[in-house]
């Protein structure tokens, strides 16, 4: 088992240590340990219900919002336990941003969507400049620069998702968690999101949950395969897809299940 978990070398941004998540009596995530390197892209793959989204949500404490959830073990961000005493989930979520499966812009203007996070977090700079910078980072600026006051819901699905990415980047996080960010989008919008992920890793650590193995193979440096709440295998994406060490990984990536 241990040689199936190949933690990358170099500075670690996020780490799970014997991390478990319980929904009532069900242990959805079982004693997971892995390290996520700084400014690289890591993807979590696995069949539905394998715990990959649950693991992702541990890193910005979004699981806290689910009633009856219990977390055991540690999730570390830059060496500090996110579930330790004195750590405020509100602060965690500013530093570790998240993009959801379905684009969820607020039903407000494009501008208001971007400035909401910075405003509540007491941003002191120039808001117009921040909006332009965030939208440029999300490769959306050219498409919306003339209609920042338009309702965000008037954008296409792919544009909405890029707006959600811009919104997340506007609070200047260090990590971006993405929960199947392209699964509700068409192939062209998906490609834009993937290109964007590639660009983002210059400045951010990106963790992406995906159902598409092609996507994992295209965008990520490291891939973890989860199955039934456990990390079956974790390693460099190339190795995991070309030379899986676990039979279950091989079965999954060749499409024998999932």
């Amino acid at each position, binding site marked *: 088992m241990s040689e199936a978990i190949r933690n990358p070398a170099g500075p670690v941004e996020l780490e799970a240590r014997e991390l478990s998540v319980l*929904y009532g009596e*069900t242990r*959805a995530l079982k004693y997971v340990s892995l390290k996520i390197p700084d400014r690289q892209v890591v993807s979590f793959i696995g*069949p*539905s*219900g*394998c715990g990959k*989204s649950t693991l992702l949500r541990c890193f*910005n404490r*979004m699981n806290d*919002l689910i*009633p009856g959830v219990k977390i055991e073990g540690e999730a570390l961000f830059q060496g500090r336990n996110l579930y330790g005493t004195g750590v405020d989930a*509100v*602060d*965690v*979520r*500013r530093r570790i*941003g*998240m993009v*959801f499966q*379905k684009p*969820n*812009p*607020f*039903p*407000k203007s494009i501008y208001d969507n971007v400035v*909401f*996070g910075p405003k*509540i*977090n007491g941003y002191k700079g120039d808001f117009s400049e921040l909006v332009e910078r965030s939208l440029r980072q999300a490769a959306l600026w050219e498409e919306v620069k003339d209609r920042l006051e338009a*309702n965000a*819901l008037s954008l296409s699905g792919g544009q909405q998702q890029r707006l*959600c990415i811009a*919104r*997340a980047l506007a*609070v200047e996080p260090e990590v971006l968690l993405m929960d199947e960010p392209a699964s509700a989008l068409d192939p062209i919008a998906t490609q834009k999101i993937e290109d964007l992920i590639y660009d983002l890793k210059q400045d951010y650590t990106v963790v992406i949950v995906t159902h598409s*193995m*092609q996507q994992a*193979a*295209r965008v990520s440096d490291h891939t973890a395969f989860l*199955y*039934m709440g456990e990390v079956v295998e974790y390693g460099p994406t*190339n190795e995991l*897809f*070309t*030379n*899986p060490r676990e039979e279950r990984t*091989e*079965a999954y*990536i*060749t*499409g*024998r*299940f*999932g």
Partner: protein
Amino acid sequence: MTEPVKDAVAVPAAPTPRTNGRPATQFVRPTFAGLQRPSNGSINADESNSAPHPAAQRDPSRFAPRVAQRRFIASAFAALCLVATLIGVVVLAALLIDIFRDGASRLSWSMITGFPSRFADRAGIGPALAGSAWVLALTALFAFPLGVGTAIWLEEYAPNNRWRRLIEMNIANLAGVPSIVYGILGLALFVRVMSLGRSLMAAALTLALLILPVIIIASQEAIKAVPRTIRLGAYALGATRWETIKHQILPVALPGIMTGTILALSRAIGEAAPVILVGALGFVAFIPTNPSDQYTVLPFQIFNWVSRPQTAFHEVAAAASIVLLALLLSMSAIAIWLRNKYTRRS
């Protein structure tokens, strides 16, 4: 990039039949409450692996479609529903026609602004209209913040346990308590214990209690209708619960809350029974100017005139009813306008 990757993987020892370019699935997915979803792969596999469709062995004798009979039942049901609708519409129309026939001739500006009189041809509804307006404003002032606050607490803060369910059940029950009971409560609590006497304040507080459950339930529904993804989006940006409520949930829920509140308020200004108990007067010859003043309201003024023997007063009552109806209809119209204005956008 993926294709060469796949080719490099050793082909499994027992080759599985392929369909639509995908291997067939024999694997049973792990179940996980709430997260499981059907897999495209297995659906495709089932279709292609199962036996040929039994269409080859069709046997019409196994069915008895009786289309004509079913069509008849369908149209009969539609006709019944139409009749049910028409009964309501006809009765309402008859009521309106009757009121208008009696009251339209007495409707005039001097009647709307005038003071009551013991001579029917000089009687006006000025004080009653002003009283209703006062009661409406004061009731809204008390009931809106209390109702919306309760709804926010129940939906956003209260833990989902048996106490919350008990509170919600009781609120739902309170919505069904007859208004006269609220009148008795108002008389005991506001008029006597709080010594507010026969004041606008006592009436407004009583009516506020009466419509509070309706406002709470309507606001809860409006808050519940805000998509969970919006909340999650706000929390994920580091918003606190209050910031999420203030900036994201309330703006979306507000049209629904306003609609519910306006409809509840129109119920309040149509009520006569509770205001009679808390001391509305039958004859008020002044316009109330502050919340501690004595008062009357339109429904009670109408009731007072209708119960007099002279038919001339019945005509004034009908005219006053037209004014009350117009008031209620315009409040409903505002509610509908608000709902349409905001639902079209989202």
